[in-house]
């Protein structure tokens, strides 16, 4: 996702002279092409995220389209007040791009984990929250973000994730979920970097004869209410899948929607991380397994739930 972001950003920088790149002293060599082509529109803002976010807001208030980028906790919780007050309150069209969603940087420890960011950012007025599921969604989300006027938060995984979509997403729209596979027994609503895991879970379920619908629910705010109304009406079991705390994340947003609309789901399961820091060393795959978020574990939980009726 990371390299797709840098590549698409360079293209957007070519097309739109308002696009400015702000980095929090990360992405060594990642932005070389952008810098080479648009040196006057690239700023390494150093390890000073509060200032970076304020600078981005000041630029956006004066007609530019800044993209501010660093590792997830540092560009969300570290400078949350600047996001809230400078960006959201002023309705400044800043695109905040975070790398290392959820447990993508599991090995770096809880300082670098990000399982609370969706909760914080989706509660901010005017903020759009997008969690792309693969590199094509990253490109489309970035492009869509820079073509509208709201602050946007784009939550990237890391680099080298499996690509799920077959090609560029010409029909991508913020707030419109993408149905990847049709099914009848269970519907998987996946957001962000869990999409490849959801794809694998769907395959496992298919092997067991369970017809699975798979949706990439890339935009957590605003929610695609049409999609939700449709799948909760059609399926006996709907699950949400995210690499984020079950408190305040995507699944929580869907639960809020259910309560607020008076919709009674037949069965609803939320996959996410627990209310705890993950302190063990080890990479993302290990962490997902330890927290029950691997494809086979998701599939097993769903199979059990369906058997129970």
């Amino acid at each position: 996702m990371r390299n797709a972001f840098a590549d698409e950003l360079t293209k957007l920088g070519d097309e739109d002279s308002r696009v400015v790149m702000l980095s929090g002293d990360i992405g060594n060599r990642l932005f070389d092409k952008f810098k080479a082509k648009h040196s006057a529109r690239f700023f390494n803002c150093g390890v000073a995220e509060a200032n970076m976010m304020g600078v981005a807001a000041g630029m956006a208030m004066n007609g530019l389209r800044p993209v501010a980028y660093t590792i997830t906790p540092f560009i969300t919780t570290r400078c949350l007040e600047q996001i809230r007050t400078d960006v959201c309150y002023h309705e400044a069209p800043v695109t905040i791009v975070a790398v290392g969603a959820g447990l993508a940087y599991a090995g770096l420890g809880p300082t670098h984990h990000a399982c609370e960011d969706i909760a914080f950012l989706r509660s901010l007025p005017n903020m759009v929250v997008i969690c792309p599921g693969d590199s094509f969604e990253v490109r489309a989300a970035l492009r869509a973000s820079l073509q509208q006027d709201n602050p946007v938060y784009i939550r990237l995984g890391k680099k080298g994730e499996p690509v799920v979509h077959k090609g560029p997403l010409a029909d991508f729209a913020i707030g419109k979920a993408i149905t990847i596979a049709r099914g009848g027994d269970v519907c998987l609503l996946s957001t962000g970097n869990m999409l490849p895991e959801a794809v694998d879970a769907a395959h496992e379920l298919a092997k067991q004869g369970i017809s699975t619908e798979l949706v990439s629910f890339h935009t957590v705010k605003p929610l695609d209410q049409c999609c939700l109304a449709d799948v909760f009406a059609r399926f006996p079991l709907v699950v949400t899948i995210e690499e984020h705390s079950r408190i305040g994340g995507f699944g929580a947003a869907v639960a809020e929607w259910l309560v607020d609309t008076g919709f009674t789901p037949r069965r609803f399961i939320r996959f996410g991380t627990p209310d705890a820091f993950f302190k063990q060393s080890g990479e993302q795959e290990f962490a997902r397994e330890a927290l029950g978020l691997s494809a086979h574990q998701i599939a097993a939980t769903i199979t059990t739930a369906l058997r129970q009726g």
Partner: protein
Amino acid sequence: MNAIIRASSNRIDAAALERQAALLRGKIIEMSHAAQAAHLASSLSCADIVSAAYWHVLNIDPREPKHPLRDRFILSKGHAAAALYAALAMRGFFPVEELDTYCADGGRLAEHPPANLLPGVEAATGSLGHGLPLGCGMALSGRIKGESFRIFALLSDGENNEGSVWEAAMFAAAQRLENVCVVVDYNKWQATARSNETLMLAPLADKWTAFGWDAREIDGHDVGALAEAMQRVPNGSGKPVALIAHTVKGKGVSFMEDDNNWHYRAPTSEEVVKARKELGLA
């Protein structure tokens, strides 16, 4: 650039600016009384700085408050909103009568300046340490777009406690934002204590110098000197400019000066009369 006008010619009329500052103080005191709102002393301490800016320095046009080439004045110490509102109204950005709605239910003049609501307010402030980063972003947008304007950010001394101020100070120096000017309203008090007994600011000008700024100390109540120093931005040093303005909290009213109770207290009607008399407005 035709649309942009200054309130005065380049010649500094110190006596006229002093009179303007007295009128501004009188209005601030009336507003504080009417609304029984806090932060009167903070507003009075920066009244000369605000007067120099709005009646001499700034390239602004009240008829075109969003003109892309306007100078930006950011009241980073947003708790002095009364001073900003009064200056904007008296300069014609909105009717002076609207000052009567300061802090009133349903109005536009809240205790801290709002975002995207009131003509002339460049940024919503009130949380300290935000104005300078915003100003740096505005300065860079001007550089990128080839627009020439200046940014003035008025900070309180207590605001210098905030780490984001120093993040922005280093950033502005690295980017050589010579069209950015910080004015610190150095009244030696913060909300509940002496500034230098809270977090050590002194030597404050040396700190800004060490952070790569062209910093100097100035009498924050010499409105002519303030106007001259601010008007010289950018001053040819190639650096952003910091004016450490020595001020007295509650300046202009003998019974408010350097008495930190007036950070939160609002005057009675008798005190308003007395204060206006001292300001030569009675």
